[in-house]
């Protein structure tokens, strides 16, 4: 049996990823709004952190949380404008491999599919990343997969 990667103490996780999260949020939201979003990102991560079962893919996880927080902020502050899909900064293979397949999906479904099947995260973790319930995360992933299936074999 493979040993699960232990979830590191939050302090280490935070120290490792805070700069990158802030960079992503600054680029997306500008310096003023990025600060609040930064705090919101790590508070959301803390809320789910105690239930994580594995310390794998924490970078992808927290960047997904950050993107979702940013989308929420943009939605709040520019309600009439089309939400622009943000570039995926992550260069891990799973994202790259899945990108050609999943790029056409609605953002939430795409994130759920990538986190579920690219990173093998639990629905619990995905829910935290998407800022939704576990049920909603499961549904987003399964709707996404169905959509892909229809696309592959119409």
């Amino acid at each position, binding site marked *: 049996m493979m040993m699960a990667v232990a979830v*590191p103490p*939050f*302090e280490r996780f*935070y120290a490792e990823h*805070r700069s990158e999260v*802030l960079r992503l949020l600054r680029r997306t939201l500008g310096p003023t709004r990025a600060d609040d979003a930064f705090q919101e990102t*790590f508070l959301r991560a*803390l809320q789910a*952190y105690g239930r994580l079962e594995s310390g794998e893919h924490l970078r992808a996880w927290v960047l997904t949380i950050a993107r979702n927080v940013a989308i929420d902020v943009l939605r709040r502050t520019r309600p009439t404008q089309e939400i622009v899909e943000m570039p995926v900064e992550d260069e891990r293979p799973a994202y790259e491999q899945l990108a050609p397949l999943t790029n056409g999906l609605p953002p939430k479904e795409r994130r759920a599919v990538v986190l579920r099947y690219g990173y093998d995260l639990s629905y619990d973790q995905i829910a935290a990343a998407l800022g939704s319930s576990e049920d909603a995360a499961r549904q987003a992933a399964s709707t996404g997969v169905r959509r892909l299936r229809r696309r592959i074999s119409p």
Partner: protein
Amino acid sequence: MTVSSSLDRSLRDAAVTLGLVDVGYDVVDSPVGPLFVAVSDRGLAAIVYDTRPDDQLERLARLGGPRVLRSSRSVDDARRELDEYFTGRRRGFDLALDLRGLPSFTVSVLRKLAHVPYGETTTYGALAARAGHPRAARAVGTVMNRNRIPIVLPCHRVVGASGDLVGYGGGLDRKVKLLELEGALH
């Protein structure tokens, strides 16, 4: 990109205020050197003379959960009581203690230890007897040596039967200094 200290501070404060931290820790200055102080939702969990947190975070996570975060706010009460103690304004501590994970013998010895008064000393043998194990002086010595919460659980007040100070987990110098502070050495 560097996270500013004010942004960092405000996140840490918010995390504690919202109850999202399992174990908070910070370094507290004292006359016996900087102290690594850790507080869980149950109470004071550890005081360590060695302040390199790398040696401590995993231990704290095993004790209280993975949400271990450095935060000044979470150790506010402990810092205040320690400051009062070191400036001679406090003789006993009112802090709740988190003794999770310790064997029952250890806990029973530490509970008796907590009652050894400020400015007085007792012996390993006497403490063993008080904990109901009169022949366990050596085991009591081990418990003192591994005491997770020194100063507040005053293992510095426990000395050898001959009056010899014997030893101290934090180094004999610190034991002497604490006993001097309490007026127990002349």
